[in-house]
């Protein structure tokens, strides 16, 4: 699968959810399974990174103004 240029959290999550849906329904061909599993792992990592980054940014934002 091609990697999109600017992946957003929302689109990453949507893709991930679709993959999980496909896995649950077991409609993925074995030829694609490994690749799709890799993609899923990649998306999970992307989303986790994004969340962690967001968390860091939020912490910095509100530390100043609430004092």
């Amino acid at each position, binding site marked *: 699968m091609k990697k999109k240029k600017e992946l957003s*959290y929302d689109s990453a*999550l949507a893709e*991930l*959810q679709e993959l*999980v849906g496909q*896995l*649950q329904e*077991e409609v*993925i061909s*074995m030829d694609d*399974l490994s690749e799709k*599993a890799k993609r*899923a*792992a990649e998306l*999970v990592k992307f*989303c*986790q990174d994004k*969340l962690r980054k*967001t*968390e860091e940014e*939020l912490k910095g*934002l*509100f530390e100043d*103004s*609430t004092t």
Partner: protein
Amino acid sequence: MSYSLFELNEFIRQVLALNLSDGLWVRCELAQVKHSRGHCYLDLVQKSENGEAVIAQGNAVIWAKKLRTLRQKLGLESDALLQEGMEVLILVNVEFHERFGLKLIVADFDPSYTLGKLATKRRETLMQLQKEGLLEKNKKFALPAVVQRIAILSSENAAGLKDFLNELSGNDFGYAFSFHLFPVAMQGVKVSAEIAKELKNIDAGLYDVIVIIRGGGSKLDLAAFDEYEICKNLSQASLPVIAGIGHEVDETVLDQVVHTSLKTPTAVAGFIIHHNLRFESQIMQLGTEVQSSANLLLNDQKLMLQQLFQSVAQQSDSELQRQKMMLGFISKELPSLLKTNITSELTRLDMLEKSVLFLGPDMTLRRGFSITQKDGKTIDNGSKLKPGDEIETIFLNNKVTSIVK
């Protein structure tokens, strides 16, 4: 028989002297008052009931010596009383001189008569003004919030003018004032006409108030300010009028038609300063209120902003946690899902294998059938073989070679 003129006049003098030997109290109006060499010459008149026609006229004199005595006795009132237009009750001796003719020599006068006349006239004036709605007219003006530009109706040498100017200029609060004096007589017959004239010269756009002031004077001096014309003109002035015409006891009619009446010029100055001071303190009060309102508003907004910040922080955090949980759930489930997918594929393969086995030749051979082949190819029809062909028969566990006959 005839008489010389002197004899006639002498006779008249004797008749008069016999019949009018004592002084007489006479009521009349002063038509003209002239001072000369210390003596005071009076033109006396009596007017008809409607006040128009002169029905009697005479000349009187107050000799200098008598005048001094009267001044000592009556004080300031004597000069105030001896004004044109005054109605007076005078004690006179009737004298006739052969050469100079008839003359009334004034021995005394009764100021209370004049005051009484004035009081009556004053009441009439008041009633007239009231009827015309002029008593309240000037009072309907609202004083400007700040009084700074002052038109002064006064006499240049009036005692109170200087007091007034000093009081205003030297005020403790540093308020600035501009003055314009419109000079008018403040006593005597000219007062009414001069005030009427100067009132017309006052441009209402250039001033905040008109002030009419004079220092103290006698009660009779104030009579001018009871006159109908003067009061009417002032009541109809185009600006509020403040009066301080220097009196302690009685109010004049003028005091009742003006916007504000005070006793002295100094009191007028004090009133104006106090008026301005009240405005300044109101402004300061408003300033304080604006400041505290602004502070309140600012604090409210600060609080609201703080709450918004907190709520944004909380919402973002909880959204973050939700996403984290979801992602955690997905990533945890992924391996088992993948495994399930592989397992079910394996199961399917297994089943396929079984099917293959089931449908394959082994099961047929097991049931006692055999397969015939020639040169490695399965023969499904015997007519394809000729005698002498070598064929192979395959059983479940072995195979036999034979020749076709």
